[in-house]
């Protein structure tokens, strides 16, 4: 008996096909954004808010002061957490041991205009940063709205945003949620108490499900590292136990504002190129190349078009797919100047040492800022700093602090170019121990910062820098430069220690030679002491010769 399998028709399939909103997609793929587990969710939420605050403050020329507070919510309402699990159709309780926490981040920044608040917090992929090439902490504009989404999914609570653009203007407060199906904000005004004093800046309050843990890859470590890379900022952190940690400001210098640049042709992929042509205001391909890219002169534009076999008068919006292909090839065949690098704002050698000094007690600090260079058309710049000795643990592997555009990277160390460069550097040349294939062992903190208009992360969660050869090479050069200086210091230290040890060793045993000679030769105490003094002089002399 043959059983006839019933296949679906296109019409039947169409009935089940529907548009998936970005918000829905991320609800199911929250790990892509750094919300894979309760502990990490807390960190990601804080990180997105703090990164935004720092960027906003700097852009407005304000020395940042940021208050982070995590408070446990006493009563846990069972029903609401199911939103997330229901969405997955899974009854398994994936978030075992999670608490309900209120995360609050307040800055002294420029504030946000009333009309923008709902969009910024209630719409994914909305922001100012994706559409420009400028060095900034956030890149995609997913961050804070993803945190709001996470809050909504786990606790059913909407984000509360309070903002005041200046002391003179009126403060606003919104409760913002996200309509998952439409990727659209659902916002409503919330009341501000009559007597409540609202300072200038923005305050974000999110109620989320998560677990706060101390140390390691957690909020306290993130703030400490952020303080290292941002010595001009002040952080106050109140943890769920009520303990307050303050990271004081070490520098009153704001980082130089980073300039916005147009993309360099080498850094643009085919798909992006096609999108750019669709969106451009130019009416000719040549004009498009000259105005939408950096380093493309009229002459270079002609050269690209000649390689591509496209005439310059074509309207960019009429360029067909295969022509775009040729244009892309044409770009690769044309020799272009490297992109301008004045768009980068490194932390600076002095500031890096200041930041490190205030967060880590050591005896020796050094730092270096490499000259800017380029990977795939994207300008970048590497900085490194080392702290050595003092109260740092002497028998453990060095602590590696990774930063990208001043943001600490806490997860996925193994996949990161910075970790690879640390391991591939031979620290033994600098008088440090290093087991094969491992970071060095000793009282050492290693800081590496990559500044770029476009940091190549290995994933959307921005946790690890991709290992481009140019990047690896620059990191290693920076580490070597700092390593050499530490090596000299270690050597000097070691010699002094050796000297002191030898001296005390000799001084320990010389008296016994005196005692023995006194016993055998019946010397007087004075003769004995003179013999010891003489011996000390003799040993000092021979040691100097050696």
């Amino acid at each position, binding site marked *: 008996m043959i059983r006839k399998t019933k296949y679906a028709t296109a019409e039947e399939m169409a009935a089940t096909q529907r548009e998936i909103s970005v918000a829905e997609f991320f609800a199911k793929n929250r790990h892509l954004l750094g919300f894979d587990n309760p502990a990490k969710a807390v960190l990601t939420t804080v990180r997105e808010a703090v990164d935004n605050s720092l960027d906003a403050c700097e852009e407005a020329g304000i020395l940042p002061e940021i208050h982070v507070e995590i408070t446990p919510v006493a009563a846990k309402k069972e029903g609401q957490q199911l939103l997330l699990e229901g969405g997955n159709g899974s009854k398994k309780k994936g978030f075992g041991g999670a608490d309900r926490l209120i995360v609050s981040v307040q800055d002294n920044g420029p504030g946000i205009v009333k009309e923008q608040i709902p969009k910024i917090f209630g719409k994914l992929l909305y922001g100012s940063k994706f559409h420009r090439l400028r060095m900034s902490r956030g890149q995609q504009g997913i961050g804070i709205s993803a945190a709001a989404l996470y809050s909504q999914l786990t606790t059913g609570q909407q984000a509360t945003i309070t903002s005041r653009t200046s002391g003179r203007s009126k403060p606003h407060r919104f409760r913002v949620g996200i309509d998952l199906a439409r990727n659209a904000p659902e916002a409503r005004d919330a009341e501000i108490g009559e007597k409540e004093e609202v300072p200038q800046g923005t305050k974000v309050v999110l109620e989320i499900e998560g677990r706060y843990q101390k140390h390691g890859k957690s909020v306290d470590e993130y703030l400490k590292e952020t303080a290292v890379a941002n010595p001009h900022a002040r952080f106050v952190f109140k943890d769920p136990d009520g303990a307050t940690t303050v990271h004081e400001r070490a520098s009153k210098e704001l980082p130089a504002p980073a300039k916005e640049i147009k993309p360099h042709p080498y850094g643009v992929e085919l798909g992006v190129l096609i999108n750019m042509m669709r969106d451009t205001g130019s009416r000719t391909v040549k004009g498009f190349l000259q105005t939408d890219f950096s380093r493309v002169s009229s002459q270079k534009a002609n050269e690209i078009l000649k390689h591509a076999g496209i005439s310059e008068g074509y309207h960019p919006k009429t360029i067909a797919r295969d022509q775009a292909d040729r244009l892309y090839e044409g770009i690769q065949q044309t020799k272009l100047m490297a992109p301008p690098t004045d768009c980068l704002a490194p932390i600076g050698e002095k500031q890096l040492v200041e930041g490190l000094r205030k967060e880590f007690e050591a005896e020796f600090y050094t730092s270096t800022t490499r000259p800017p260079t380029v990977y795939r058309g994207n300008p970048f710049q590497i900085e490194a700093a080392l702290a050595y000795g003092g109260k740092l643990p002497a028998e453990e592997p060095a602590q590696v602090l990774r930063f990208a555009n001043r943001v600490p990277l806490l997860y996925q160390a193994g996949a990161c170019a910075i970790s690879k460069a640390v391991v591939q550097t031979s620290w033994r040349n600098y008088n440090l121990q290093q087991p094969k294939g491992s970071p060095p062992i000793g009282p050492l903190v290693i800081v590496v910062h990559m500044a770029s208009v476009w940091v190549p992360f290995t994933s959307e969660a921005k946790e690890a820098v991709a290992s481009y050869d140019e990047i690896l090479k620059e990191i290693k050069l920076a580490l070597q430069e700092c390593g050499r200086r530490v090596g000299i210091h270690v050597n000097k230290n070691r010699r002094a220690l050796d000297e002191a040890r*030898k001296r005390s*060793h*000799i001084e*320990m*045993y*010389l008296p*016994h*030679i005196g*005692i*023995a*000679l006194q*016993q*055998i*030769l019946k*010397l007087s105490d004075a003769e004995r002491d003179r*013999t010891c003094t*003489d*011996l000390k*002089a*003799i*040993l000092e002399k*021979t*040691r100097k010769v050696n």
Partner: protein
Amino acid sequence: MAAKKKQEKTTTRKGKKLRDGLVMDQITDVAGGIHGTIGKRGSPRLDFPARSLSNVVYDEKQGYFEIGKQKIERTLTYNTVKTFAQTLRFMALSKELVERNDFATKRDAYYQSKNWGEARFDEQTESDAVMDDVEALFSTYNVSREELRFYPEEHGGAVAGELVVIDADPETGTEIEIDCTKFGSGAYSIPSSVEHLRFRTDAKFILAIETGGVFQRLNYHKYWNKAKCILVELSGVPTRATRRFIRRLSEHRGKPFLPVYAFTDCDPYAFANIYRTLKVGSGNAAHISRFFCVPQATFLGVTPQDIIDHKLMDATHKLQDVDIKRAKDALKNDPFFQMQPKWQKAVKQQLSMGVRAEQQAFAKWDLNYVMDKYLPQKLKNPKSFLP
């Protein structure tokens, strides 16, 4: 007779006093040299004979292992300052012991150092090594460790027979005569240090016996009386005290020396370890061999040929792998055996026979066969003994 005895007494005591004085002088000399160098702002130095096997030679004329001429200079530096101090402190201890007429064993000396604060020894192996240094240092001045008053932990073997040992009361110095015929079924026990002992004997030879079993049998039946000899029990490889005792006893009257006959099992261990050490000393203590060996000793038996002559083949044991290895090693590496063709022949004979025999194997014929037949027969011709 009485007068002669009295004179001897005084010379003993005087002799010992004189010797002690010399030892103290040597210690003072070495220390004084160091003190003098320091006074002149020079680097003080101690010279030790190198104590390695490469610095050992077999002195054929003297008949014992002798240390070579290689020296190790220990100049006072950062690295040596601790041992240097410890060496000097041991020298000071030694001088004090001589002055107080006392002694210290290695263990005693180790515990003494616990009073030295940071210069103390943590382990006895460390203090033993420094003591060996001191011993080697003074061996170049013909001063033995016992004379430095560092005594070995273990006493010597048993002695029985026609011998009077003249010792002194350690406290009063009064002479004590010990008659080694008067211990009944027991025996006199050789003390750790024998340097001060004197002897009186009419015996014709000394019989050095490996095992307690044969010693007991010969003593029990007063074989020493019958054969006019002195019995010394070696019990395995003889201790320093036993070797020194036999040496001094043999030479106490000057030449001709009292003959020393070794009587051991017939196996490579007895040849290459027991007899070889008795006669020429041990390789790793060559710096002291000249005190602690009996070059005049000869080997009475049991030889491989004796097994055949006395029809003992059915009372033998097969040679073990270790025996064969030891025998081959002696032939190949031991300077003593390399110098002695007769021994080479004997060892090769044993290897070809593939068996070993014990001293007590003679009991196969009769319990007393060993003293009634074997020993008298052998002693008829001492010239035939192995060198």
